[in-house]
């Protein structure tokens, strides 16, 4: 098991290198950082000197080698836009994105799984049809439109929830959390809902499909015939068997939730990594963009690893195979 984890983490280094390489080969088309770093009155000569000093005139391979070489030594460089250390900028933004992503994931699981089970057991009921319709509408509307609609309904018209930012945050040993204040939770609801709605629909439909399949299988019929109580039948016997594919999809999607929270973060001015990335694109802040993409690649690898480990925990058959 330890070897397996170690091997996966070693692989992640190659994934990150590949991502960094691809990212770097694209950065040249994003624009010119120097014209974003300097004012209109700055002379062409001064701009050229800055470009030379930043090594932007060097060949692409050399720039990439310098970037990865520095990364491997733990030197993440400085932002072109704010001149701050990139590592610090990204680290301070990670809590916001992770908390948003995890709460969105929890919403999607805690709402998605029960409704999935319910809609599977009562496939033709009125409530089921209503739920299926609304969630379908939910996934068909682009994220930013959902976000804006929620903001204008709950923030502007009703005035119940804040329209932007993280609200009250609390420092917990360098981790800036909004999970420990009422204000923080109020600010978290709308963005988490916006980010989670797609996941929620996906989870619900997946659970529903799997559940309907499982309910038709022989062992459920036998269990029903034996008089196993309904609650135990549905949740212990049927649901547990639907969870392996659900965890795969939800787990893999979670990497996407973290990576693509960009839109949600932008709509809610949520100070996470995605918003930082957007600002960095605008200013052609190559060091920040490069490190962000590498960090996201690492998240993807990590999430996949956790999904693999969860399989083993949920499906006893895999454990047996591992031992043999």
């Amino acid at each position, binding site marked *: 098991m330890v070897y397996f984890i170690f091997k996966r983490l070693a692989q992640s280094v190659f994934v990150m290198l590949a991502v960094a390489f691809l990212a770097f080969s694209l950065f040249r088309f994003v624009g010119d950082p120097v014209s974003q770093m300097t004012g209109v009155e700055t002379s062409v000569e001064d701009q050229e000197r800055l470009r030379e000093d930043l090594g932007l005139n060097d060949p692409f391979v050399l720039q990439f080698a310098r970037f990865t070489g520095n990364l491997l030594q733990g030197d993440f460089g*400085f932002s072109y836009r704010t001149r701050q250390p990139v590592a610090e900028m990204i680290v301070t933004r990670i809590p916001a994105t992770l908390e948003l992503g995890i709460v969105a994931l929890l919403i999607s699981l805690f709402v998605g799984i029960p409704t999935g089970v319910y809609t599977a057991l009562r496939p033709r009921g009125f409530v089921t049809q209503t739920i299926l319709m609304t969630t379908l509408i939910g996934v068909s509307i682009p994220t930013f439109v959902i976000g804006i609609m929620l*903001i204008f309904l709950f923030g502007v018209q009703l005035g119940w929830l804040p329209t932007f930012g993280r609200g009250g945050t609390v420092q917990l040993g360098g981790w800036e959390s909004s999970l420990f204040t009422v204000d923080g939770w109020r600010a978290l609801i709308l963005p988490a809902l916006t980010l989670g709605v797609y996941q929620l629909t996906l989870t619900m439909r997946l659970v529903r499909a799997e559940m309907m399949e499982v309910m038709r299988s022989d062992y459920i019929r036998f269990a029903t015939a034996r008089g196993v109580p309904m609650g135990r039948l549905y949740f212990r016997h049927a649901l547990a068997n639907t969870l392996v594919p659900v965890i795969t999809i939800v787990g893999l999607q979670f990497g996407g939730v973290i990576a693509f929270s960009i839109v949600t973060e932008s709509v809610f001015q949520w100070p996470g990594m995605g918003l930082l990335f957007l600002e960095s694109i605008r200013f052609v802040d190559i060091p920040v963009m490069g490190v962000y993409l590498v960090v996201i690649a690492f998240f993807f690898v990590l999430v996949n690893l956790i999904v693999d480990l969860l399989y083993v925990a949920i499906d006893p058959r895999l454990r047996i195979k591992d031992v043999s």
Partner: protein
Amino acid sequence: MTCNTFRNSTLLASAAICLSVSASAETLRWASTTDPQTMDPHAVNSAPVLSFLNNIYEGLVRRGQDMSIEPSLAASWEPLEGEDGWRFNLRQGVKFQDGSDFTAEDVMFSYQRASNEAADVRSWFAPVADVRVVDDHTIDFVTKAPNPLFPDSIANFMILDKGWAEANDAALPARDAENYATMNVNGTGAFTLVSRDPGVKTVLAPHAGWWDEAGHNLTEAVFTPIGNSATGLAALLSGEIDFIQPIPLQDVAQVESRDGFKVLEGEETRVIMFGFGHEHEKLLYSSDVSDANPFADPRVRLAAAHAIDVASIDRVLFRGKIEPASQLVPADISGYSEANSSRPDYNPDRAKELLAEAGYPDGFSFGLKCPNDRYINDEAVCRAAASMFAAVGLKAELSTGPVRDYWPQLREDDFDMYLLGWSPGTFDMEHPIRFLMHSQDNDKKLGSWNFGGYSNARVDELLPMIQQEIDPAKRQMMIDEVVKTTQSEVAYIPLYTQPLIWAAKDNVDLTQRADNFFMLRWVTVN
């Protein structure tokens, strides 16, 4: 107790205290689209930085509500006797925010810092030959040639404390890596920095020892950058912020229709124009003219000018909020040429005649480049212009892109015609002549935004004379000549002056300055 100190506490109860305190009337919460990149007044010469830091730092001179130059850290100034330059008599008794005294040494230090290679504002000091401290409260700026506008040109040159900067290893502006001055301040201005979380929140509080009488009633000012304009509007309408700059044109009606909010409209000093590839041998993006550059012919340029219907652009795209422009500065800028205040009228027939005279009776196709995230409605304006051009036979192949990609294209001469906006940093006509009309000359650092390479020997000859002329009447005559020449040669097609649209709660009184700077010292919350 402020929200900031609350951040370090873990008590839930203090959330409520925080909320109740921040609801008091003297706190102003405002938002803008861009976070200032740095708190260092010399590191980045960009509007978000200069606008924000003018609340914290001050210059020798400053601009009033109507943009006029008034004394600030210099109580008065006069031309030097026997040599070219200016003597600044510094204000006595001014304190920095950390309590140290303001003296001529601080000005000298700030000059050296701001004119260093690591500073982005060093072009302001190109005319300076020498700076001499005369005594604690007198300093001389010697210029290479007579420079009547020098005091006006350094209104954004902000003075920081020598002792503070040196003690904190911030003697030079942070260019490659941050230093102490990137995140901390020590100015003489009306407000000081309480906390800064870049890209998230910046909190300012009044500087108790400010030398001038405070024209505001604020006890705290909280700035949040909000990049998404719909989010910014929602934040205003929900009452979470008191003021936002700017708001998109299409949201004006939405704000005006609600009680308790107001829209502030003004003219920015930015003139939007079309430029040509004057010096290009041939068109780059033409499907029918491959061996010549029709825009080298002034008749073709004039035809293009006659083809544009600014009134329609105003009505359809700007809801009547733009002012047509005849030259590269709007009318309230010093040096504006009254004598040349008419622009080519909308006259498609004349445009077709001119094209026929120039040898293009059927017109021709060419490439038009435009940014899509730089000016208000920039892409829409170009689309409208392209269809107006098409009506006279000028078939524009429009390509648009974000500004981060746009400037490099213009620098590489990758255009036939392009859109540009220009706001004169010194609020004088000399500024666009220097940057847009003088021939490109990297050695003299002139014409650096004259992408099309417009060149006229007489304009080049007049620029230094305009810069040095003390007599306003003579100076204006020379400027009039430049404007007349460039108009008759259609060096550019000036289109209109861009509007400035801010929105605020009704209970906030503030001043909208034409340079789009937001000064907290004129804000009162009722």
